[in-house]
């Protein structure tokens, strides 16, 4: 189609922590300045800024992106916030992509920030207001409950055990032990630890869930002619996809995330990928809950339905396996400052494909990776495919 090519040329991230002393503006700026420094650019080189940040209720700031704008480096620049709930972190780079692919800009800074700790005592209560005001909110549903429903359905449909699912939590938390920004890396954690952790809403237990966190991540995107000048290792955006399903999540079969499949097919088509299982070398599926990583691998067509746990058991998804999954440590290990956690996955692919992931480096010079996020009422899939070839 002759679409304009767009590359990731820089990335930066703050530590993910339970309670940051910095304001959201400061977190945004820390990540943004690290990303700029990583590609030796300054704000003067940036033509537009995109912001991703999840519900305003967390920070307790209305029009939160307006408040964050100077921290994100958007002073006197074209600046917009995109929003697809939990899928935002992988959507913001798509927003940056279309800023540049449209031909309107040659460079774009993408910043994702989340400060959940402002919600006191616990941000879980902010989720009360995501439900339908007439049919659901009156029941005072907790987000953990609906994940418990979905996890149960997934286990029931395919005959999957709690231990099968716990293995991916163990894998990711162990991977995160090698991530300098991680909140919950644990090199010694075992399946028994997960199975013995506190029950929150059966079958969800504490160690099945990613932690509440504060943090920010930023990446720098550039059009081809700029990217080649800035770095000799640009990481190209090869495919993007997103899909938002109906809000009536209760009418959906929760065993399979069809919206993820629709988003993935869009991204595969753009990237010219026919056999994703052979052509995707690293996958960073969204893993706010351990079963979700498996569920999403299936939606992404990287595993047969109900078969993702087997890939984990067989070691396929290990850092040195045939298709490493969440070598970063994922949300389960690195932390889950919602939008920032999604962009962290894209930053991880950037570092992995450039061979800069340090102790987390996947062996064998991977050439292509996929990041995916999910959000809303079990409703949205966002997918970005990046690779070393334009």
């Amino acid at each position, binding site marked *: 189609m*002759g*679409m*304009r090519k767009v590359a990731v040329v820089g990335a930066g991230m703050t530590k993910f922590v339970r309670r940051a002393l910095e*304001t959201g503006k400061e977190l945004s700026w820390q990540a943004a300045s690290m990303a700029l420094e990583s590609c030796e650019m300054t704000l003067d080189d940036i033509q537009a800024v995109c912001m991703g940040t999840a*519900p*305003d*209720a967390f920070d*307790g*700031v*209305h*029009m*939160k*992106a*307006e*408040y*964050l*704008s*100077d921290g994100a480096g958007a*002073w*006197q*620049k*074209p*600046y*917009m*916030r*995109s*929003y*697809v709930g*939990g899928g935002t972190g992988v*959507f913001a780079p798509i*927003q940056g*992509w*279309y*800023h540049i*692919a*449209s*031909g*309107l800009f040659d460079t774009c800074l993408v910043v994702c920030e989340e400060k959940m700790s402002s919600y006191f005592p616990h941000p879980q209560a*902010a*989720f009360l*207001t*995501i439900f*339908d*005001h007439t049919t659901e909110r009156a029941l005072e549903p907790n987000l953990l409950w609906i994940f418990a429903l979905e996890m149960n359905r997934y286990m029931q449909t395919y005959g999957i055990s709690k231990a099968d699912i716990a293995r991916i939590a163990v894998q990711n938390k162990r991977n995160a032990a090698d991530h300098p920004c991680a909140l919950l890396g644990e090199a010694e954690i075992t399946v028994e630890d997960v199975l013995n952790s506190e029950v929150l809403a059966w079958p969800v237990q504490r160690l099945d869930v990613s932690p509440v966190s504060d943090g920010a991540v930023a990446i720098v995107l550039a059009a081809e002619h700029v990217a080649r000048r800035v770095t000799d290792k640009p990481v190209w955006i090869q495919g993007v*996809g*997103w*899909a*938002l*399903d*109906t*809000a*009536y999540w209760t009418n959906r079969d929760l065993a399979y995330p*069809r*919206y993820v499949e629709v*988003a993935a097919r*869009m991204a595969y088509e*753009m990237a010219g990928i026919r056999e994703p299982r052979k052509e995707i070398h690293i996958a960073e599926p969204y893993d706010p809950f351990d079963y979700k990583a498996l569920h999403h691998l299936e939606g992404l067509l990287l595993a047969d339905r109900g078969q993702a746990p087997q890939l984990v058991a067989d070691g396929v998804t290990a850092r040195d396996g045939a298709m490493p999954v969440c070598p970063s440590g994922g949300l389960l290990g690195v932390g889950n400052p919602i939008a920032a956690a999604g962009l962290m996955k894209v930053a991880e692919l950037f570092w992995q494909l450039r061979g800069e992931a340090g102790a987390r480096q996947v062996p064998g010079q991977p050439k292509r990776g996929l990041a995916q996020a999910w*959000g*809303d009422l079990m*409703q949205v899939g966002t997918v970005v495919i990046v690779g070393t070839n334009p």
Partner: protein
Amino acid sequence: MSDRVAIVGVGWAGFRPSTPDQSYKELMYEAAVRAYADAGVDPRRDVESFVTVAEDFHEGTSIFDEYVPDQLGAALKPVHTIGGDGLHGLATAYMLIRTGMFQVVAVEGHSKASNILTLPGVTAYALDPVLNRPLGLNSDFIAGMEMNRYLHVTGATPEQCAGVVVKNRRNALRNPLASYPADLEVDEVLAGPPLSWPLGRREASSLVDGAVVMVLASESRAEDLSPQPIWILGAGWCNDAPSLETRDWDEAVYAREAARMAYRLAGIAQPQMEIDFAEVDDTYAYKELQHLEALGLARAGEAGALLEEGAFEPAGMLPVNVSGGSLGVGHLLDATGLARALEVVLQLRGVAGERQLEEVEIGLAQSWRGVPTTSGAVVVMGA
């Protein structure tokens, strides 16, 4: 890559101070059905991506984008929300089509302002939580301070600001969508209760409920779909400093920079000569004058005098807010910019009824996101 993008369908619903008979979903649905019919498209078959503009606190729902797809016919399609004004949404659709990935994109904005019991209380949550919010002030004080600064710097007078109200609410008499038409005199505007000195209550727009949907298409599809595509010649948007302490109080920098970008894309060198009419943000009356100067449609400090001379009347040199603007039509929260753009489309199509301007070819719509933001957008359109 498709460089040229056109608006091929528009639809609207509501535009009333309250809509107890319709939920926000019904307003969105009604506007969408009209827009799709206008463009002759089936959303399930033809519309490839959807953009909504919304803010959670205005909706009273966190992660509001959840509730967008169903009533737009957008389920399982690429849908996303922009935390911005309707013109930011229009600019987003413009970008999506220009990538070459999408041929037809729909944009939606709405207001269910009548559901909000305490808008000033909501707006207070947009203030810096550390430095400003603890002062416990009604956010309109920012508009009062800014108006005072505007009068001081430019020499514009309170009477000229009141003149904006007189003009826009009179214009609204000829707009069936307007909720606040009135035939007032300057004295009557100034005699109203104060809001935040020197800003009076009658110089602030009042809220309405409503929804606007627009369908945009690439050049090749636009010519199939519409006998009268309205081309987006340029779009721009910008943020100045968000903090009250560091922003520029003398000038609407966001509007100036957004216009500069839009004019560059549209190839407009002399906006005063080339723009035939404008729909600009008039959330507060002084804002219309301040914005006209920032947009280069009046020289700095001259908008007030031009207004008094009648330059911005429907029969003047540059008709401004012939729709009635937010002062006459009502303010639609995040959909306000789309309401401005809607008037530009209707005028360029020549279907604006009683208020139709003669021989207009290029129109401009501009938005501002309201206090305490310094965020605005501009879209220039041509027949």
